């Protein structure tokens, strides 16, 4: 069976929400995203929920500890295990964070930012190519939130992400909230960041809420509602993208009832639909576009 490409708006599949989401009569979530690390080597209720989610929604997988840019040797056995899992789930692509997640001593279970320099581009792109060769499926790298720069810091974050994606020939998962958080924390223009990315490589978008600790310090908590400037940045980014990637709402902490998240999903769906229609209208005005335009999907 061919992998189903998600469209529209989705929701991160969390155990706290699972029963409500799986049994509700209506949701604006058209797909869900799971972390393979939560299901590998498991059975019991976790696998039951995974099977139920797969029955109701199309699915994408998003890694947490792939150590895509790590300094430790790649664990091929682990990647082959992941490949089997991804094939079983019939996902259209796999994504993970553009960062370190382990040291020589231990897995840190955190997203450690990379130095933004040419040497780091070369090393990371080579490693990502190796991962793609093993997984044999499209891989998207996600821009991460950060609170300090890792030296050496010779290029902008967007130039770094663009260079790695281009050199490794991989896709990008653009986290809009992370762009906004980093823009506030490091003082750059988030729209310029978006403009300078190879947007044709963006295969999926993440969006979430954050916590404002100080006037110039935002923490990417995934535990709050999305703020207005982040919605605005999403609208801006989607309008710029040549293709319309699906948008996923991440909520990992301080999880409210589904009804509350539905309000955010509904708003995201409206933005997604609006930009989709604008894209479709623009394509229709062009003299001859042989590109097949799919019908806009409706929420489940």
């Amino acid at each position: 069976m061919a992998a189903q490409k998600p469209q529209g708006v989705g929701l991160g599949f969390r155990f706290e929400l699972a029963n409500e989401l799986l049994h509700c009569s209506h949701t604006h979530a058209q797909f869900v995203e799971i972390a393979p690390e939560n299901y590998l080597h498991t059975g019991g209720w976790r696998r039951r929920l995974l099977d139920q989610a797969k029955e109701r929604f199309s699915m994408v997988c998003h890694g947490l500890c792939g150590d895509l840019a790590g300094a430790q040797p790649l664990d091929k056995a682990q990647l082959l295990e992941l490949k089997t899992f991804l094939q079983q789930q019939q996902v259209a692509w796999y994504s993970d964070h553009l960062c370190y997640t382990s040291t020589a001593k231990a897995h840190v279970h955190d997203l450690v930012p990379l130095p933004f320099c040419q040497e780091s581009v070369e090393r990371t792109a080579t490693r990502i190519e190796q991962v793609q060769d093993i997984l044999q499926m499209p891989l998207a790298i996600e821009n991460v939130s950060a609170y300090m720069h890792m030296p050496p810091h010779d290029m902008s974050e967007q130039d770094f992400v663009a260079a790695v994606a281009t050199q490794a020939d991989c896709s990008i998962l653009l986290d809009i909230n992370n762009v906004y958080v980093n823009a506030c924390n490091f003082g750059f223009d988030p729209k310029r960041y978006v403009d300078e990315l190879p947007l044709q490589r963006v295969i999926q978008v993440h969006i979430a809420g954050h916590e404002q600790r100080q006037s110039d310090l935002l923490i990417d908590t995934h535990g709050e509602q999305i703020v207005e400037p982040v919605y605005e940045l999403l609208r801006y980014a989607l309008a710029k993208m040549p293709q319309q990637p699906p948008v996923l709402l991440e909520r990992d902490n301080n999880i409210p009832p589904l009804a509350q998240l539905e309000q955010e999903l509904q708003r995201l769906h409206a933005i997604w639909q609006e930009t989709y229609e604008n894209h479709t209208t623009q394509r229709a005005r062009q003299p001859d576009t042989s590109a097949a335009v799919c019908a806009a999907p409706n929420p489940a």
Partner: protein
Amino acid sequence: MRDGIVDTICDCLAVTCRLAGTQQLQQWIQQWLAAAGPQTRLFWQLPVDFACWLMQQPNCSSRPRLYVELIHYEAMQLEAIHAPNASWHSKQQPSRITPASHLVCHPSARLGIYTYPVFDLDGSTTKLPAKSEQPLFVVVYRKQESCHFLCCSPPIAQLLAQLQQNSSLSAGLAFLRELYESVNEEKLLQQLQQLQQQGIVQLQHLI
């Protein structure tokens, strides 16, 4: 993030948290993070990782043996709850086990040997149990998504350990005959029959 790891482990080790106190448990977790840190990339396995490290540490007065065993027992329950599914149907009818039978263990089955009856603790009382005179053997397993335990005799525990290493039942019984002066095979087979009824073991040809 360290706070996230500490909180997650504390949540999973609820009985220890209640009996030893959150602060004490957090302190032990911090010692683990400083000395070794997570060897697993799977977040759900962090309490298991921590418990294994703790069991390997030499006895010390700041980490009473009772709590080390309780942490291990709670981590074992977590492993049993999340272990891969068995390849056989849980409603499979039991059938007769003979020394020539080929048995397999349920993937969730975990064996523990304790000096305190930690499996009797549920946090409802703060009264701590006395040390047992004999080592206590327990098998923890999952049945219909719930975790259960069964106290067992040392030979049955050793036999299960052999089966988990893919030994045949006849090889397992031969192993016990080497260990003990006399082995009551008939009684062992009866006990295995009970384990089969609980879904802890199954005959290979029924899978």
